[in-house]
């Protein structure tokens, strides 16, 4: 019976541990399937055990059950009697696995009900159930069962870029702890009868005291596990994220980094959506904002372009590399934009303007790739971020580009960005186009101009995706496509002409419905274009070959004008406000000028490497810590001041002298009020003396009378001379205040206290003195006692409440089981 109970707990704990999966799925179908599978597996295990089957038979039974369940749930139609799997079934399973892999690639979390993923989930949870059952019931090692449970939990942790909600973790942890408690209570049951604290047998309706203790520990442990990371600043976003990024950062897992989504697939998918979804809200002081970029595909293989290996990257929080002024021919202006990403843009890539010089207010751990000019993260998402980008807008003149020399063939940039598979047809087309063109710009322009309506190119989203060699040839033949094909084809052809090129992804400047300085970009504004490398002076220059009329917010410039516009208007219709092509670079329009200076003036602080904030946090934390540490000392000095002002108060009205025998001359106070004051003074002085003793590590004996304490101080040589007299006086004053009819009005208790404290301090070692000053043990002791007392009260109260509630427990009605 006990095994059956434990088996049930194991199955339930497995399901609880699967709770974190709820964050991955949109719906709860998986849970129903998993519950059925786990229940059947547990049932099979119980059956096998009740037949006293050996361990291997139990395992076999469970595996078989899981297989049957999977067959039933994900049937291929070829089964015998719908549940007996046939070879076709397993082929189907393999296919489902492939689906799952595909789904994982193409879907973001939370995923809808996909049969492949469901299959994988049921298979995984079922396997975990088998393992947990085996470890817990058969091998009696429930602690080890936490490992497979942890495996389930690690799935959402791996999938989600930022932190996972703590609730599923709590549920999973509760399941695991339940398992542990059940196992241990079971062990004790086997050992013998259980007793309550007062020696009775534990009744069946009562919670086991042992389990209660376990529960209490478990609650505290789980609460700590959840709350502690929340309390430690930066632990969730700092430590773990840094650790994770350190592994997959520079030279890590390369192309996957920050681009789990295939950029091309993503682009075409979004553009083909029917509904408009807002993705980025931009507020900028740039009057002619260029394209926003977030990704680059710079590696060309037979399958097409894809994001290449990142050669270098640096943490974004360390700042960006400084911008080098390219000199004549390139006009630069410095602008600032605030980008607000909605929840619909969920990528490990940050949309930014080209040539950023500073990015602020981002959350999470991000890295900057200076080659691609892309900000990426492996564990953070751009989702719901709001950040500020300061960037340099470069505008090139055709005349300046025309003078650009070809980049030497040995340049690593050329080697890297002209690498491509050979394609005879494309090569022939390019050779034909660039024939007779000498400078790189003329060659690029020849290719760029080729994508014109005149040559039969038109815009269409209804095309096959892909940027591979065949797709490019198809496109050049059919001449129908959208930005993806245009950008890839042009990049391919420019490379074929021996000039470095790559494909950039981002947003066009939108439908230009500007609301003041801000405008919104939707999924329809996603765009791709070509970037061509013109040497270190110019860097990567964007060319958008897609027909301008078909792209909302398409931007042309005089070096790459709209090829479909009439030739006469070419120079003047260019949206660029920059200088005319024949004017040598360097002159800047007045508008730009004012913009520049204003921005530079405002942005001086931010162009210098932004000072990191952690020193302030550290200083604040240290100050806070010091303040907290100073509280006991403050409390102590406050107490002392209060008591000394009491002890050294003005002498009360005293009358009559020489009362009883002995003790020398003294003043007996007759005034009732004054007597009360004198008593309080004596008590205050005595309490202060005791505290001082505690502070200087002189033991306090609760069985000692004031006289005995004072005598001990004198006898032990702790005080001598005048301080000994003072100690005796304090003792006498206190004992008279406590036990005599009339208190002693000594008047100089405050001075006596000071003398005694000085004497005690001179006897103590340095450490004790320091502790007495900084962290007075008397105050700490009192606080500790207060805590202990209050916790005892709490325990007692809760115990009484529990006893009261137990009276209503329905388990009382259960009869005592026969043992």
């Amino acid at each position, binding site marked *: 019976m006990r095994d059956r109970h434990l088996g049930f707990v194991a199955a339930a704990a497995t399901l609880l541990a699967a709770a974190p999966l709820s964050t991955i799925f949109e719906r709860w179908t998986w849970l129903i399937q998993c519950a059925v599978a786990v229940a059947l597996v547990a049932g099979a295990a119980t059956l096998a055990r009740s037949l006293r089957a050996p361990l291997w038979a139990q395992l076999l039974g469970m595996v078989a059950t899981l297989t049957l369940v999977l067959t039933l749930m994900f049937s291929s139609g070829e089964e015998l009697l719908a549940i007996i799997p046939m070879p076709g079934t397993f082929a189907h399973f393999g296919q489902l696995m492939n689906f799952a892999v595909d789904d994982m690639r193409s879907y973001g979390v939370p995923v809808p009900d996909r049969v492949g993923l469901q299959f994988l989930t049921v298979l995984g949870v079922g396997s975990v159930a088998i393992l947990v059952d085996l470890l817990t019931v058969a091998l009696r090692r429930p602690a080890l069962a936490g490992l497979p449970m942890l495996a389930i939990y690690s799935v959402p942790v791996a999938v989600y870029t930022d932190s996972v909600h703590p609730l599923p973790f709590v549920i999973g942890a509760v399941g695991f702890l339940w398992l542990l408690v059940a196992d241990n209570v079971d062990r004790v049951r086997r050992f013998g009868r259980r007793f309550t604290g007062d020696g009775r047998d534990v009744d069946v309706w009562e919670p086991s005291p042992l389990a209660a203790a376990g529960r209490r520990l478990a609650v505290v442990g789980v609460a700590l596990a959840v709350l502690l990371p929340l309390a430690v600043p930066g632990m969730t976003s700092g430590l773990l994220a840094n650790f994770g990024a350190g592994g997959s950062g520079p030279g890590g897992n390369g192309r996957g980094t920050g681009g789990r989504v295939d950029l091309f697939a993503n682009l075409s998918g979004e553009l083909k959506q029917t509904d408009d979804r807002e993705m980025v809200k931009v507020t900028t002081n740039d009057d002619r904002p260029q394209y926003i970029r977030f990704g680059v595909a710079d590696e060309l293989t037979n399958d097409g372009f894809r994001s290449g290996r990142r050669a270098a990257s640096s943490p974004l929080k360390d700042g960006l590399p400084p911008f080098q002024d390219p000199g004549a021919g390139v006009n630069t202006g410095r602008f600032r934009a605030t980008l607000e990403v909605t929840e619909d843009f969920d990528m490990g890539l940050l949309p930014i303007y080209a040539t950023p010089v500073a990015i602020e207010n981002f959350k999470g751990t991000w890295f900057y790739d200076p080659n691609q000019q892309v900000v990426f993260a492996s564990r953070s998402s751009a989702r719901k971020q709001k950040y500020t980008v300061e960037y340099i807008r470069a505008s090139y003149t055709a005349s300046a580009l025309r003078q650009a020399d070809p980049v030497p063939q040995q340049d690593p940039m050329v080697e890297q960005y002209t690498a491509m598979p050979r394609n005879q047809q494309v090569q022939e087309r390019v050779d034909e186009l660039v024939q007779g063109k000498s400078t790189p710009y003329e060659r690029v322009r020849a290719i760029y101009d080729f994508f014109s309506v005149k040559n039969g190119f038109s815009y269409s989203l209804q095309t096959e995706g892909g940027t591979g060699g065949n797709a490019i040839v198809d496109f050049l033949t059919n001449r129908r496509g959208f930005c993806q094909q245009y950008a890839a084809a042009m990049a391919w052809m420019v490379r074929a002409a021996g000039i470095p090129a790559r494909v950039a992804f981002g947003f066009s400047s939108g439908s230009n419905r500007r609301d003041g300085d801000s405008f919104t970009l939707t999924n329809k504004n996603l765009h791709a274009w070509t970037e061509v490398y013109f040497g270190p002076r110019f860097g990567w220059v964007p060319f958008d070959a897609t027909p301008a009329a078909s792209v909302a917010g398409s931007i042309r410039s005089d070096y790459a004008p709209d090829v479909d516009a009439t030739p006469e208007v070419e120079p003047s219709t260019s949206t660029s406000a920059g200088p005319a092509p024949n004017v040598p670079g360097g002159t800047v329009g007045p508008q730009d000028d004012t913009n520049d200076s204003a921005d530079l003036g405002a942005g001086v602080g931010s162009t210098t490497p932004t000072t990191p904030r952690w020193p302030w946090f550290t200083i604040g934390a240290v100050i806070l810590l010091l303040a907290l540490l100073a509280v006991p000392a403050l409390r102590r000095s406050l107490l002392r001041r209060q008591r000394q002002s009491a002890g050294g108060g003005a002498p009360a009205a005293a009358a*009559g002298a020489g*009362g*009883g*025998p*002995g*003790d020398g001359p003294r003043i007996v106070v*007759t005034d*009732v*009020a004054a*007597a*009360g*004051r004198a*008593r*309080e003074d004596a*008590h205050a002085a005595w309490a202060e003396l005791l505290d001082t003793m505690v502070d200087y590590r002189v033991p306090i004996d*609760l*069985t*000692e*009378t004031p*006289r*005995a304490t004072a005598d001990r101080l004198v006898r032990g040589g702790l005080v001598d001379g005048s301080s000994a007299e003072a100690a005796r006086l304090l003792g006498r004053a206190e*004992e*008279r*205040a*406590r*036990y*005599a*009819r*009339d208190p002693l009005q000594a008047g100089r208790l405050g001075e006596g206290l000071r003398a005694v404290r000085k004497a005690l301090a001179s006897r103590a070692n340095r450490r004790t003195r320091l502790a007495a000053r900084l962290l007075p043990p008397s105050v700490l002791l009192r606080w500790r006692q207060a805590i202990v007392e209050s916790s005892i009260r709490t325990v007692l109260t809760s115990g009484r409440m529990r006893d009261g509630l137990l009276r209503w427990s329905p388990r009382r009605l259960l009869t005592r089981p026969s043992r």
Partner: protein
Amino acid sequence: MTQPSWDQLGGPLSGTEFRAASDAIVANIEQVIEGKTATVRLALAVLLAEGHLLIEDVPGVGKTKLAKAMARSIDCSVRRIQFTPDLLPSDVTGVSVYNQETHDFEFKPGAVFANLVVGDEINRASPKTQSALLESMEERQVTVDGTTYELQTPFMVIATQNPIEMEGTYPLPEAQRDRFTARIAMGYPDPGAELAMLDVHGTSDPIVALKPVSDASTVRRLIATVREVHVADAVKQYAVNLVTATREAPDLRLGASPRSTLQLLRTARAVAALEGRDYVLPDDLQTLAVPVMAHRIIPTADAQLARRTTDAIIADIVHRLPLPHERQRSPYDNRPPAGDGRAQYDPRRG
């Protein structure tokens, strides 16, 4: 116990007078017993607390001498009983004899009719005789043949016994022991005192030359003064705590009686007065705990096997029992500083 009224005792003495009178008695006794000031003062304190004293020690340390010296120092009626196995109760209490002249029974008072009764070697008498003392010690009266005779004040029994030699002795019954306020041990004198003793006692017994320095009426007034000594509520609480602790101590089969609480406080008053205080301190209780309580309690068999003496057990309890917490101080102490009508004020204290 019936206590004499104020009128019978006489008015209390002032501090100086008290001191002079008590110091005189102590100094007088010390002429005979050298270097035992504390013991002598304790004996006097028992007298002033209207109690009885049991001196228990090995032979030859001056038990009887202390009793005699005390009796001689006070000019009052002193009777001495040598407890022997053949002593009869009537020897102690008195007996009615037939007077042939008056043809009537006439009461002949026994040895107990005195201010100070010195009972030597009390455990050598039979229990029958020992119990003759019970009524007189507690109730200060003797009932013979249906007639009750009051005893005088002060009345004090000073008994001695030898704890080592048990042959031919009858240990005091518990009821009897409980009637003794305090049990003290003489202890050996220190070498200096013993040397001085050789000089003084070498030629003649100084006790013969001892002259009374006080009388019964002075002692009565001393007793009246002792009754005036103030006992704070905290001290009373401490006394109760001490006695309760003996009843709860795991080492003890029998704890101290309520009578012992009373006698503890009474003796503490006397000790405080002898020290020149008009209030009792917990220190007094601590000093008196062993002499007042140790002879009344019975240790368990385990404690006896572990050779824990009753003295050690009581001392241990005193050492471990905390003083009453300050929060439990008397309301007198806790009254607001401004003072209100609730404050109790004794007009006699001036």
